[in-house]
């Protein structure tokens, strides 16, 4: 750029460099309360431009009316109070429930992994002799329990003593937790063909392989869960049944007031559903949040009137 062109620009810009725009002038200009014909010279061009931008609508600007209105009516129907009352709170409850029970399942799986890991270490001789023996016994107790399907925690305690009995009990709880988690991820209604590919857990894989496949594992786990439930809930038998106690691996023996585990079957899936639901309804969600924001604003306006 040359000096001449700079000077040319400055010459023509200078008169407007300091064009005063008080708040009142700006408001009048921007709200259309300063017509171009009445505006002082420095503002006339702006007023004219703003008048044009806020001018009368043209036919082409409502060309999509039929399509948009029809779609909007359908959207309103979908967002009607009946739908909201029936689905939104339920989905929120499911979400919370899923989180809670997923956490429980994760805790149970952790206990199971620790128990199995300890048993494996004992079997390979990686633990000190005393400990290895006790955990080997525990593993044996579990194996016995698995085969008979009748042993329970109290029997383990009565047959063993000291560290052994504690190990057996905790491993049995671990098996219970593992089975509970397994059943949660492999409900009976889901076909093995659809369950297996999504199962990437080494613990589950080991469990499945050790019981000859999904069907065998499922049968085994149902036995473990029902057996443990029956014995663990002995002090609260009135509230205890096989279904309700499945979701309480960490609370064995306590009153059963939590929902059944069949709901957390959707533990992983339910959480994913919730997430995808939120994502898929981004538009509505945004509108909803917009709505609430504007509604409060609107309420304020209404209150002001």
């Amino acid at each position, binding site marked *: 750029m040359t000096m001449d062109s700079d000077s040319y620009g400055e010459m*023509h*810009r200078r*008169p*407007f*460099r300091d*064009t005063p*725009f008080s*708040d009142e002038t*700006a*408001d009048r*200009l*921007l*709200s*259309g309360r300063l017509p171009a014909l009445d505006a002082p010279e*420095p*503002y006339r*061009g*702006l007023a*004219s*431009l*703003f008048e*044009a*931008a*806020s*001018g*009368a*609508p*043209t036919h*082409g*600007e*409502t060309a*999509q*009316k039929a399509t*948009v*209105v029809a*779609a*909007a*009516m359908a*959207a*309103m*129907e*979908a*967002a*009607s*109070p009946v739908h909201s009352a029936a689905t939104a709170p339920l989905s929120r409850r499911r979400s919370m429930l899923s989180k809670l029970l997923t956490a429980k399942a994760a805790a149970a799986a952790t206990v199971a992994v620790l128990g199995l890991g300890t048993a494996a270490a004992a079997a390979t001789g990686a633990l000190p002799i005393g400990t290895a023996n006790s955990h080997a016994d525990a593993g044996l107790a579990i194996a016995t329990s698995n085969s008979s399907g009748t042993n329970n925690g109290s029997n383990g305690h009565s047959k063993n003593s000291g560290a052994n009995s504690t190990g057996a009990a905790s491993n049995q709880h671990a098996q219970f937790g593992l089975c509970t988690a397994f059943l949660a991820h492999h409900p009976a209604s889901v076909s093995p063909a659809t369950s297996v590919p999504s199962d990437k857990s080494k613990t589950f894989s080991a469990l499945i392989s050790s019981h000859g496949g999904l069907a065998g594992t499922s049968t085994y786990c149902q036995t473990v869960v029902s057996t443990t439930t029956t014995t663990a809930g002995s002090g609260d038998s009135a509230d205890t049944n096989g279904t309700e106690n499945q979701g309480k691996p960490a609370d064995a023996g306590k009153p059963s007031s939590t929902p059944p585990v069949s709901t957390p079957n959707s533990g992983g899936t339910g959480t994913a559903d919730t997430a995808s639901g939120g994502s898929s309804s981004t*538009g*509505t969600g*945004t*509108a*909803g949040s*917009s*709505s609430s*924001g*504007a*509604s409060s*604003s*609107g*309420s304020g*306006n*209404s209150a002001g009137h």
Partner: protein
Amino acid sequence: MASGEAFESVLAAAQAGAEWAFAALYDDFNPRLLRYFVARAPRAADDLAAETWLGAAGGLRTFVGDEQSFRSWLFTIAHRRLVDYWRDQTTSAGDIPSDMTGLAPAPGEDLTQGPEEIIVGAESAQAAARKIASLLSPDQAEVILLRVIGGLDLDQVADVLGKRPGTIRVLQHRALKKLAKEISLEDVTG
């Protein structure tokens, strides 16, 4: 839209599910909505306007307020749609879309014409809106468009954009000075 009771009755009917009432709201507000999008994202203006109405329909039953509040609410949705659009464009293209940095005139459109010529030209309102956007930074353009086309006051613009009123006032002041300067230059050179 006739203000006051007429708007309230139309809004109430629309909230009750009357199609004619929703159509009336559309007739009244869509032209300005469309101009806002034409100025900021011309290639997706129609789609964004339609999405805004769908979003509004989803929350219409719970809306409470007068016409000015409705206008602010509608443009809040519109602004969020626009931000979503920009975000998508940025994500997919890997860089900032041209829509975001100002406007590249569509083929056949001349955004350099003066305001007087714009007024009498075809599609003058949309051309004027695009001219405003083309002369200002994105932030400044957003403020001016929401004020002029959206019909929002300064506080409402602050709410829509999630900024403080003082920030909006500064943006607005700088935008007006810049517009005045550019237009005066066009008048002199044109």
